[in-house]
């Protein structure tokens, strides 16, 4: 997983059917306190707001955010917002 702030949103019309209705957000990857410069696109089901710190899960972890369970192999998701971060120490 990575974490970092939501920095924006992506709107699409022409897309794979499995993405239809999904909100896509841009997340800047943070390592320690610095942003690394990498940006990922993640499916957001938690209604994350721009500026909010989140974690993004990849691969089957992302599918488990969208549709938890053993039979989610056909779910189109390789990155999904999994946590809205409140704080850390």
């Amino acid at each position, binding site marked *: 997983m990575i974490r970092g*702030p939501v*920095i*924006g*949103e*992506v*709107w*699409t*019309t*022409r*897309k*794979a*059917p*499995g*993405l239809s209705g999904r909100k*896509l957000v*841009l997340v*800047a990857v943070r390592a320690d306190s610095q*942003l*690394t*410069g*990498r*940006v*990922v*696109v*993640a*499916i957001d089901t938690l209604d994350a707001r*721009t*500026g909010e710190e989140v974690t993004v899960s*990849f*691969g*089957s972890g*992302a599918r488990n955010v969208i549709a938890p369970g053993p039979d989610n*192999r*056909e*779910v*189109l*998701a*390789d*990155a999904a917002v999994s946590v809205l971060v409140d704080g850390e120490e």
Partner: protein
Amino acid sequence: MFLARVVGSVWSTVKWPEIGGLKLLLVRPYSLEDLAKERAPEKDLVVCADVLDAGVGDDVVIAYGHAARVAVSQVLGESERPNVPIDAAIVAVVDRVQVTLPEKPPERG
């Protein structure tokens, strides 16, 4: 997934049979700096399958891994396609991107 700009394509005659008929495009991922400066990305290059008929200059969303094969399968409607030996595919063509930078650069002069 990541956001990228389509910059070209690759073609081949010798390939794994399962990959036959798939268009392969060259894309450059956007970095934070590219988005901040509203410029086209210039670094890195990724080859990905395209079943959405994207073209050079389009901004697209790329998925990796199993999700890439699921997308190809969904669009082509072929159940055998999940075995295609790709691990990156265009899953959406971008209409609009809205970016709000997390830390504004210091104002000058």
